[in-house]
């Protein structure tokens, strides 16, 4: 069957450096539309899962309300700074969930049952197909809820962030999403050796809790590990501090550098693990 609208010729004349990302963006867009169509088949379920995320976020909010009912400051953060922190944490986690989460959760099961074959046989990057296949569309609403809490905190504190601060907030949030991705991918990649690795996914959720607490609260070796090795303490604290404390220093440089290192390491780890894939079903 001939395609009525052939690919624009301009694409072919673009350099490879641009053509490749463009191809993957088009692929991601097609997969996004497919996910949307799937979600809309079960609308009630779709809405219920949004409620689930709201309920879990409400737990965090209730904790903040109860804590600040008794004290004025926790680790140098006041109530509305903490609300900005949990809002930023929610925004980042939900954006991660929108893009990568379901695929990472399904990876252990796909390895166990041999369904990963489908990702490996397609003419595209295996890591891309294994981790950017299904989009969790409902997360858009909950990422919005996180942002609303950030705005609420900023408004209550009477802050007037500059355009540069706002852009930096979104840049660092994007960075946080990529840190989540690198950490989660590294964890679930263990499933190439460990059968039925549902515990790995639960482990990620436990790690994620660290992002909602001010990094100043942590001390000693735990703070060092979760700042430099598994930088969960930077994921939401840095974007939040951009708004509340105008964070503009050398920290930014190494956070970005660290994210790139983690991404490269997790990709190398995934490629290494693929060698041990035995395709259980066939």
């Amino acid at each position, binding site marked *: 069957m001939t395609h009525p609208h052939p690919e624009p010729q301009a694409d072919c004349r673009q350099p490879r450096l641009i053509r490749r990302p463009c191809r993957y963006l088009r692929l991601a867009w097609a997969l996004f539309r497919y996910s949307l169509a799937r979600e809309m088949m079960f609308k009630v379920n779709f809405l219920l899962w949004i409620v689930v995320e709201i309920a879990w976020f409400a737990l965090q909010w209730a904790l903040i309300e109860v804590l600040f009912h008794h004290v004025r400051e926790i680790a140098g953060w006041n109530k509305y700074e903490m609300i900005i922190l949990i809002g930023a944490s929610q925004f980042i986690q939900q954006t991660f969930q929108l893009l990568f989460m379901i695929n990472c959760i399904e990876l252990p099961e796909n390895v166990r049952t041999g369904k990963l074959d489908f990702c490996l046989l397609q003419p595209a990057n295996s890591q891309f197909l294994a981790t950017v296949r299904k989009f969790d569309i409902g997360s858009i609403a909950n990422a919005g809820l996180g942002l609303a809490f950030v705005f609420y905190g900023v408004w209550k504190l009477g802050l007037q962030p500059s355009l540069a601060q706002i852009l930096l907030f979104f840049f660092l949030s994007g960075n946080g999403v990529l840190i989540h991705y690198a950490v989660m991918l590294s964890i679930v990649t263990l499933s190439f050796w460990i059968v039925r690795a549902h515990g790995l996914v639960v482990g990620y959720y*436990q790690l994620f809790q660290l992002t909602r607490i001010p990094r100043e609260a942590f001390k000693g070796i735990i703070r060092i590990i979760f700042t430099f090795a598994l930088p969960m303490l930077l994921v939401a604290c840095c974007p939040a501090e951009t708004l509340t404390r105008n964070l503009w220093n050398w920290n930014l440089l190494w956070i970005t550098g660290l994210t790139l290192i983690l991404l490269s390491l997790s990709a190398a780890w995934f490629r290494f693990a693929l060698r041990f894939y035995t395709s259980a079903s066939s």
Partner: protein
Amino acid sequence: MTSSSLQHPFLGKYLRVMSIGFQNTLVYRWNFLIRAFFGFLPLTCSFFLWNAFFGGDPDARIQGYAFSGMISYFLAMMLLDSLASPTEDDWQVAGEIRDGLISQFLLKPIDYLAYRFSLFLACRLVYTSTTILPALGMLFFLRQYLAFPEEPAVWLVTLPAVLLSAILQFLAAYCIALLAFWILEIGAPIFIIYSIELLAGGHVFPLDLLPGSLYRLLMWTPFAYEYWFPLGVFLGKFSQPEIWRGFILQITWIAIFYLLARWLWSRGIKHYSAVGG
């Protein structure tokens, strides 16, 4: 488990189920160990968050709690979780209903509720025994913050409270899972109810940090008897009359959930279409 106990005419079959439960759980021991390992992260978070809450001052007291009292609360919660909280039982029950696997239980002289309860007990015993060493390590590491009771009487009263909490948590999870007779995907309802249980049951913070009226209201709900009541008994938060009243309410809620479970099962079976065979 001795072979003579397995041959007991009534208990035998449920002890056999427990034995299978042990073996099933141990097949995937890596999964188990990973869960146990990561299970300590929430405690680490609690430790640092509450330390910051008390301003790093070990003598500061807020609402009757010192930092050590708060850490004891969350350590005891960790032990209670491993002893009494269902992990995947609700998902498994819902899965068996959805996939039509319960048909076999309708044909056999085996009670499904008792069958699931045996599996729950086996899973809790394996989980507790695999986590006991790391848990003891954690208790040793944090021993300076421990404010566990010294009187044997308190431990004696705590024991039935924990056992009843396990039964209540199991029955609540079982009732929610039985909704699978009517709703195809019950993942979302499970999580919504679970989040309410955690908040209203005292899993996120001790319930007596709440304003008085809200606290009194929650003490009438089943949630308070899943986590807060056994922990409160253990840490000496209740007077003697309050403990008796608590036991009465805990048993009442168990009876209500038991009847609800039986009722949901009998209604659900009529609705059941044995998908897949």
